[in-house]
């Protein structure tokens, strides 16, 4: 499979997502992707510049993204973050996206689109 | 202090409890001539996932919701249960101990076992949950029994008013009298049971009294005396003989050492574990011997196990420090 660089605009299209944070940088390039609900795992394995798919809605998801230099976060179906989480995303400049799909479906779609895994 | 070999209460119960004490007795069953459609109703109404199949009184198979689903898929819902049932049945006997059921659950990975009697007739059904529930009930019953017996024992001593009450049992032990070996200790054991001591303590008293008694039979040339003095909290067993005496005390105390002559060993005694076993079972043991005069052994066992077990707790080793290290 050919490895492609996908930008945020395309990602939002693929996962049928909506932006939760303001003024997203749509042509931000994403080079890899990881899916996890455990932030200890994200901190220890995810590559900088990757996209995080998670079901953990907590300000700590955004804090972890900041620490691990995660480019953006997609919250999976049914996991709508509160205003505190979105506020933190805006403050730290980390784009937050909500998708109507579950984690399984999103992984499948992005993988098919050619996004490589974000394992260190 | 030596570690006392001891089963946990649960392990003990798993071995002691018969399956019939924990199984479900009112079993819902089905006839082999019933249709799969009727079976579906039975499962639905009773909210169960499988039933044994009985022809008259005889167990002929078992049928589950999986069999029903297969029948549904194949459009075979009018078929009799006989056609679709499984005849391979995993059974246990009602008077076997629970541990046998635990083994079968592990071996066959089934959700339920059929309980039968010696004649192969169905007596009940058993799930993992039944075992847990049965153990819970038994453990609280056991706890009660323990409390009641303690009360009883105390009560006897309270009825008799004195500054210090004790009950003294004396037994004469003849040298080389292997036929009656152990009879004194079995009487001590029975007395303790009557007084309501805890089973675990009784076992320890029985083991050490038995070994002390056997020592008198094997080694004391003129026999000796066994004295058990019981007080509300403690039992003191003294074994006295008049010779020959123990030449090397350290050697006598080491496991496996024996001075018993061969013919005694051939009877199965004198393996050199006597003193070691006493040490293991007793809370304290004192041995005094003078060559040519005789030997006196004193064994002390506390009747309330917590007095002893406190010293066996192995917690909290480490360094004392702040909660912000």
């Amino acid at each position: 499979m050919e490895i492609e660089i996908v930008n945020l605009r395309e990602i939002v299209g693929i996962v049928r997502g909506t932006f939760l944070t303001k003024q997203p940088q749509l042509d931000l390039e994403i080079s890899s992707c990881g899916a996890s609900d455990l932030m200890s795992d994200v901190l220890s394995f995810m590559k900088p510049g990757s996209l995080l798919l998670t079901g953990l809605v907590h300000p700590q998801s955004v804090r972890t993204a900041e620490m691990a230099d995660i480019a953006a976060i997609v919250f999976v179906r049914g996991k709508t973050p509160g205003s505190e989480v979105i506020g933190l995303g805006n403050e730290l400049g980390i784009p937050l996206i909500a998708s109507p799909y579950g984690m399984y479906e999103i992984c499948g779609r992005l993988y098919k689109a050619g996004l490589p895994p974000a394992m260190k | 202090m030596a570690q006392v070999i001891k089963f946990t209460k649960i392990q003990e119960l798993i071995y002691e409890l018969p399956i019939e004490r924990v199984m479900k007795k009112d079993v819902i069953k089905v006839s082999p001539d019933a249709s799969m459609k009727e079976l579906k109703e039975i499962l639905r109404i009773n909210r169960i996932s499988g039933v044994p199949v009985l022809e008259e009184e005889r167990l002929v198979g078992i049928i589950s919701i999986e069999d029903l689903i297969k029948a549904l898929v194949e459009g075979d819902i009018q078929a009799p249960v006989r056609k679709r049932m499984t005849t391979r049945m995993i059974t246990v006997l009602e008077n076997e101990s629970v541990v046998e059921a635990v083994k079968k659950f592990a071996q066959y990975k089934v959700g339920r076992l059929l309980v039968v009697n010696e004649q192969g007739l169905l007596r009940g059904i058993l799930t993992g949950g039944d075992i847990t529930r049965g153990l819970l009930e038994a453990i609280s019953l056991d706890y009660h029994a323990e409390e009641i017996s303690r009360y009883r024992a105390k009560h006897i001593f309270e009825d008799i008013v004195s500054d210090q009450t004790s009950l003294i049992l004396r037994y004469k032990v003849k040298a080389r009298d292997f036929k009656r070996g152990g009879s004194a200790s079995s009487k001590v054991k029975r007395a303790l049971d009557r007084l309501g001591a805890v089973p675990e303590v009784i076992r320890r008293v029985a083991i050490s009294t038995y070994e002390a008694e056997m020592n008198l039979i094997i080694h004391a040339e003129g026999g000796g005396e066994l004295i058990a003095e019981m007080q509300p909290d403690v039992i003191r067993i003294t074994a006295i003989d008049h010779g020959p005496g123990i030449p090397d005390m350290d050697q006598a105390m080491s496991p496996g050492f024996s001075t018993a002559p061969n013919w005694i060993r051939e009877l199965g005694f004198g393996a050199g574990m006597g003193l070691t076993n006493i040490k293991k079972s007793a809370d304290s043991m004192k041995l005094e011997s003078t060559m040519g005069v005789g030997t006196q052994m004193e064994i002390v066992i506390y009747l309330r196990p917590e007095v002893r077990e406190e010293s066996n707790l192995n917690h909290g080793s480490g360094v004392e420090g702040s909660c912000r290290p």
Partner: protein
Amino acid sequence: MLRPFLADLHIHTVLSGCAEVEMIPPLIIRQAKRLGLSLIGITDHNACHDVEAMIQASEGTGIHVLPGMELQSREEVHLLCLFDTFLQCQQWQEEVSKNLPPLSNKEAFGAQFVVNPLGEWIRTEERLLAMSTNMGLEEVVREVHSMGGMVIPAHVDRPSFSLLSNLGMVPDSLEADALEVTPRFIPSIGMQRWPQLKDWCMIVNGDAHRLQEIQNRTQFTLAAAEVREINLAFKGEAGRKVTVKWPVPG
């Protein structure tokens, strides 16, 4: 007058499906006595149905029971919630029950028993208790505090159901009262791995699912066995303090 309280604030009863059947009130009290404990917390998963029986069983034994539960937050993090009175704990229970998904246990997670002070079976709880409630971490801390209780994130050094594993670190905003670590936690190693822990008072509890697992490593110096006093001890104020017997490496 200040006096020492040897404590284990995280003990399960047979109400927790994963607990052994020996975890009944009289046996827990007997074991606590043997270990020299004078303060214990009863913390079953998302429920306190066995707490009253425990309190009754403790009467006259010199052991004080703190009513509580081990709550599982939305983030799947375990939090000890402890109160002074059973009434407070029951109020909290109402809140928790509303937020627990209505699943039935079917004993896949082990049977959950409600028992009396003697440990006799009263009923089997059919609702699955060991699941995430729909309550966020901070929300739990806020609510429990407002009801006069305290919150201690449980076994933070464990690889599952813990603050450090699920959230990666202790959130700055977390207003928990102290942190619990497992009896295997060795300070010199743990502090290196999670430097953040230096800002916290840490206590060791057993998270006991069987009698042998109850611990006697944490000692409070308090005027009375109350939430307010324990909180002073966590902060090291007014002469109240916490000392812990830490395991040594190797």
